[in-house]
C-alpha cells in the first residue's frame, strides 16, 4: 500500500513475506482438503492395504462399471453423468476385513468410516468376487447368492443372486445397492455379507480370503449430503 502498487488496495492487510505466504497457503490448502474430504484429521495409516489388492481392484474397475442389468458401462460415460451432478461424489473401494471374515462359512465383513451428521446416498454398490473351479471338469453350472447377515441365521436377507458357468477362475459382480443403503440408513459402520453357492463342490472356492490378487472387494459410489442442509431444504 505504501508504494501504491503492492498488495490489494481493498484488503487492508500488508503483503506477507514470500516464504511465509507460501507456507500459509499450503497450510490453508491442507485444511481445505481435509474439510472437503469430511476428515477431522489426516488418516493414520499404520497397516495399509497391500499393493497387490489395490492393483487388482483398480485393474478390474478400469474396464468399466456394472449397470443394473449386469452389463458394463464405460467409465467415461459415468464420469460425464457425474459431472452433471452438483453434489460431491465418492467412490469407495473396500476390501473384506480378514480379521472378521470367516472363510469357512463364506462370511465377509467390510468396515466403513462415517462422520456424525453425514448422510450417505448410495448410487451403486457392487460386490466383486473371484470364483475358481476346484475340480478338473471343464465347467459347472452354479448359482451364487449374496445375503445380508442378520443377528440369526434365519434373519438374513437375500440381496443378489446369479447363475453362471464356473469354468476356470473368473471375477463376478453382484449388485447390492439396496442392502448397503439400508445399512447406512441404520447408521451401522459394518457391512456383513454371507455367500452361498449351489453347485459349488466346495465353499472355499468363494471369496478366496487371503489370496492377495483375488481378495473380494466392494465398490460403492456415494454422494454425501450433510444432514442439516437436508433439513433446511
Amino acid at each position, binding site marked *: 500500500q505504501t508504494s501504491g502498487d503492492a498488495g490489494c488496495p*481493498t484488503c487492508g492487510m500488508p503483503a506477507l513475506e514470500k516464504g511465509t505466504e507460501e507456507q500459509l497457503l499450503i497450510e490453508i490448502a491442507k485444511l481445505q482438503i481435509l474439510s472437503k474430504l469430511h476428515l477431522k484429521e*489426516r*488418516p493414520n495409516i499404520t497397516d495399509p492395504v497391500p499393493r497387490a489388492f489395490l492393483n487388482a481392484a483398480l485393474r478390474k474397475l478400469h474396464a468399466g462399471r456394472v449397470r443394473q442389468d449386469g452389463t458394463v458401462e464405460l467409465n467415461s460415460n459415468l464420469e460425464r453423468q457425474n459431472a452433471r451432478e452438483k453434489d460431491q461424489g465418492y467412490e469407495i*473401494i473396500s476390501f473384506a476385513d480378514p480379521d472378521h471374515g470367516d472363510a469357512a462359512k463364506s462370511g465377509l465383513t467390510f468396515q466403513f468410516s462415517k462422520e456424525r451428521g453425514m448422510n450417505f446416498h448410495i448410487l451403486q454398490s457392487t460386490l466383486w468376487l473371484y470364483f475358481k473351479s476346484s475340480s478338473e471338469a471343464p465347467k459347472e453350472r452354479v448359482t451364487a447368492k449374496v445375503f445380508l447377515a442378520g443377528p440369526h441365521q434365519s434373519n438374513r436377507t437375500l440381496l443378489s443372486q446369479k447363475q453362471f458357468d464356473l469354468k476356470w477362475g473368473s471375477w463376478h459382480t453382484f449388485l447390492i445397492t439396496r442392502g448397503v443403503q439400508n445399512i447406512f440408513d441404520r447408521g451401522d*459402520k459394518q457391512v456383513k455379507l454371507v455367500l452361498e453357492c449351489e453347485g459349488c463342490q466346495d465353499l472355499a472356492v468363494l471369496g478366496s480370503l487371503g489370496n492377495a490378487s483375488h481378495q473380494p472387494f466392494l465398490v460403492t459410489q456415494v454422494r454425501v449430503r450433510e444432514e442439516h442442509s437436508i433439513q433446511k431444504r
Partner: protein
Amino acid sequence: SLDCDTNINLCCKKDIYVSFREIGWQDWIIAPDGYHMNYCMGLCREHFAGAPGIAASFHAAVFNQLKANGIHSAISSCCVPTQRRPLSMLYFDPSHNIIKTDIPDMIVEACGCT
C-alpha cells in the same frame, strides 16, 4: 490470463505446487503426488480491469466502463480466480478403504479482475 513473473505486477496467475510427499501425506494419499494449487495476485488498474479476457465477467467489463466515465469511481477492482477445475484424488480413509473423489474448484487455471 497472465502468468506471473518478476516483471509483472498486474493481475496474474501465480503457480504454486503442493507436494503431498513434502507435507508428509504420501502415506494416505495414493494419487496424485501433489497438485498445482495456484493463486491470483496483482493489480487491476482501470484501463486493464475492463480489458477483454482480463475482466472476470461481462459485468466487470461493463462496470469498468462506468468507472472510466467517473461513475462509481470509488469502487476498486480485485484480482480473483475466473477458471477453476477439480482435483481427482485416490486416498485411504481411516478404515483403510480406498476412496476416489473429485474435489471441485481446487485448481486455479485463470485469473481476472472483478
